């Protein structure tokens, strides 16, 4: 293997390649098994550098906090008594969307009335509007059940994403510096999509929602352009 490629691989494992250089390297990495093997070896060597960090006592209480969160973050079946919840969310979504279609101008008042009803008392509904010049009518509705930490996203008139890109949903919670990852999704050629989601981290108070266009598989923190935004 030549030195320039070794050099790129060395910089890559530390995340020091940027922009086009990084993208070109990743493309080559995808196609070159020998290069992948080198990067794996260098990852191993670089990771060993972690041992060079001065020892820092790990707070004992952190164990319960972290393992407890992992335990509670598992996807579980709906309990028998709560089976109506997903159906209620779906019903609320259908109802909300019908209002959107029927009367875009007055839908907020109607949703406000819906939210007063018991069915929706614990469910938050948000409308996301387009930030795209080429698709100004694109929109989305998020129905979010904070107690269950899950929701449903319905998108319409959003341009289909290319094969190397994904749309990614973000939930804004002031407890976190960065928006919380709500998952990635594809949009069909007809511009529609309807998908349940569950955020990567517990969201206590969703103050807004956004959808960005990211590289395939999604990113830990939004990098790409925001295409839909609302609360």
């Amino acid at each position, binding site marked *: 293997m030549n030195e320039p490629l070794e050099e790129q691989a060395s910089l890559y494992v530390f995340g020091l390649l940027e922009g086009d250089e990084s993208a070109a390297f990743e493309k080559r990495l995808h196609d070159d098994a020998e290069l992948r093997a080198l990067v794996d070896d260098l990852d*191993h060597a670089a990771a060993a550098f972690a041992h*060079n960090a001065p*020892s820092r006592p790990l707070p004992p209480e952190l164990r319960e906090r972290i393992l407890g969160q992992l335990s509670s973050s598992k996807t579980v079946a709906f309990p028998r008594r709560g089976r109506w919840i997903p159906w209620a969310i779906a019903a609320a979504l259908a109802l909300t969307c019908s209002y959107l279609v029927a009367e875009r101008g007055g839908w907020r008042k109607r949703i406000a009335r819906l939210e007063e009803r018991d069915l929706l008392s614990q469910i938050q509904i948000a409308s996301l509007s387009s930030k795209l010049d080429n698709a100004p009518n694109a929109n989305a509705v998020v129905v979010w059940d904070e107690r269950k930490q899950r929701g449903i996203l319905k998108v319409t008139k959003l341009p289909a994403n290319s094969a190397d890109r994904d749309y990614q949903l973000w939930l804004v919670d002031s407890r976190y510096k960065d928006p919380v990852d709500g998952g990635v999704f594809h949009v069909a050629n007809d511009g529609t999509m309807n998908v349940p989601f569950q955020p990567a981290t517990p969201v206590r108070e969703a103050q807004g929602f956004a959808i960005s266009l990211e590289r395939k598989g999604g990113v830990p923190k939004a990098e790409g352009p925001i295409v839909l935004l609302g609360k």
Partner: protein
Amino acid sequence: MSAGDDAAFAVFYDRFAPGLFSMIYAILHDPKESEDVLQDSFVQMWKRTATYDASRSSLFTWAVMISRHKAIDRLRSRQRQTRLVDAVTAETDDNAGSAPSERADNALARSDEREQVRAALAQLGDAQREAIDLAFFAGLTQTQISEKLGAPLGTVKARIRRGLLALRDVLGGVSS
């Protein structure tokens, strides 16, 4: 662990969390943020257990890379938002040893690994070690590392390459 078994993941936590926390703290120099990043890292590892490929990397390497990425991401976010506080604080307990909750056998194993790695690092030249140290812990760009070291960019890249390749050759099976 790939099946997402709770008990196995608890063992995984006990084995690696102390070292990962030390590494994250060395990057962020903030206890609260380090705890948050460690938590985020384990959540991500938990979700990604099915994608871990033992033929490509050791669990240690996998865990370090995920955690370091999270920590660097947090560090750069902090820098971007110009809320970087004085990053280096005088810590009297940096060398206070392992936490009381850490299992003795884990601590011993980590200690052995650490000694082997430090012996390997000692074989690197100072310039190479310094460049890699900044690349690993400081979250700087190539240009920033070059400026910090007062060395041309090409020289910095070469130091990182040579140092990392040397470390790979010396380490062999350590840190698996």
